[in-house]
């Protein structure tokens, strides 16, 4: 076998074994526990793929136009998906964080947004 090819083969084997080891032992499968019964605002496969698009769209409509429908609001996600035990969507077994950690996608919503349901603050009637 020519030298470069051999080197490549060794590398490939190494990479594969590292990937296998990592998959087996280090990255835990996400915890997708749905505690509240009922269906989500969209079909599950749609939500898996497009939840970020719904959120971004809703975000701009809420911030700039004051449209506060519940359907695609982040607060709505948190309301349903916060774990009963921790009261949050964060934490190693949190609905949002565990999956984002598994997918390796940065989750920065909750640097600013509340990760636990708080109930809409009064907005008392005039």
């Amino acid at each position: 076998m020519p030298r470069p090819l051999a080197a490549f083969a060794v590398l490939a084997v190494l990479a594969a074994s590292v990937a296998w080891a990592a998959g087996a032992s280090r990255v835990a499968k996400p915890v997708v526990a749905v505690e509240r019964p009922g269906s989500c605002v969209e079909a599950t496969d749609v939500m898996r793929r497009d939840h970020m698009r719904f959120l971004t769209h809703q975000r701009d409509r809420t911030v700039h136009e004051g449209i506060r429908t519940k359907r695609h609001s982040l607060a709505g996600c948190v309301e349903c998906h916060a774990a009963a035990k921790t009261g949050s969507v964060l934490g190693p077994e949190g609905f949002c964080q565990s999956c984002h950690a598994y997918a390796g996608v940065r989750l920065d919503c909750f640097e600013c947004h509340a990760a636990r349901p708080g109930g809409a603050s009064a907005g008392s009637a005039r």
Partner: protein
Amino acid sequence: MSDPGRRAFLGTAAAALAGAAIAPGIRLVELAAARSPEEAASAKVRWGLLVDANRCASGCTACVTACRTENGLADTGRPRTDAQWIRIVDLRDPRTGREARAPVMCQHCAHPPCVDVCPTGASFKRADGIVLVDRHTCIGCRYCMMACPYKARSFVHENLADQKPDVPRGKGCVESCTLCVHRVDRGGTPACVEACAAAGHGAMLFGDLNDPESAIAKRLRELPARALRADLALDPGVRYAGV
């Protein structure tokens, strides 16, 4: 200045007047604010505040406390970097010695300098006149804080936790009074106004400046009120009487 008895009488009278002045307003605004959640804020409305400094009671900080509670602004013990969306400014006329006080917050200008200078367009004015920061596009350059004539803005200097669900806020962005936009969108009034009324002072009136029948518009017709830094011609939505 005056004997306590007269003061107490004036206080009661002012509170009664405040109640009388506000009660009809409450009703009128309620009628005007029939906006459903899916309806966008409209340019037909221009939200505003009228601050009557004559009624701003000495020693009272009800509006400030209410704002902090409503918006989750914690006191870290570091006043120079803590956010203050509303504060009471104590005033003294150096020539006459006359004293006054008034709450100062974002003035929700029709021509806001913060919006002019913001490089990314994160500072913006909503159709109904409320000036906000879109914290998804704020890069934290603080140019708006340099430009605001009212020192209305605060920069979030440290990591935050336990934000209010309705008031997301976080480190590295600039923020200011939102006129309690989350309450207004649901047909409510800003927390400061509610607290001021609840404390019996009624020094703050909230409403639609565009509606000639609104309590605030009527009051503005009667009371000599002015804009702060009127020389800059920014047409703020917050007006002051008595200073």
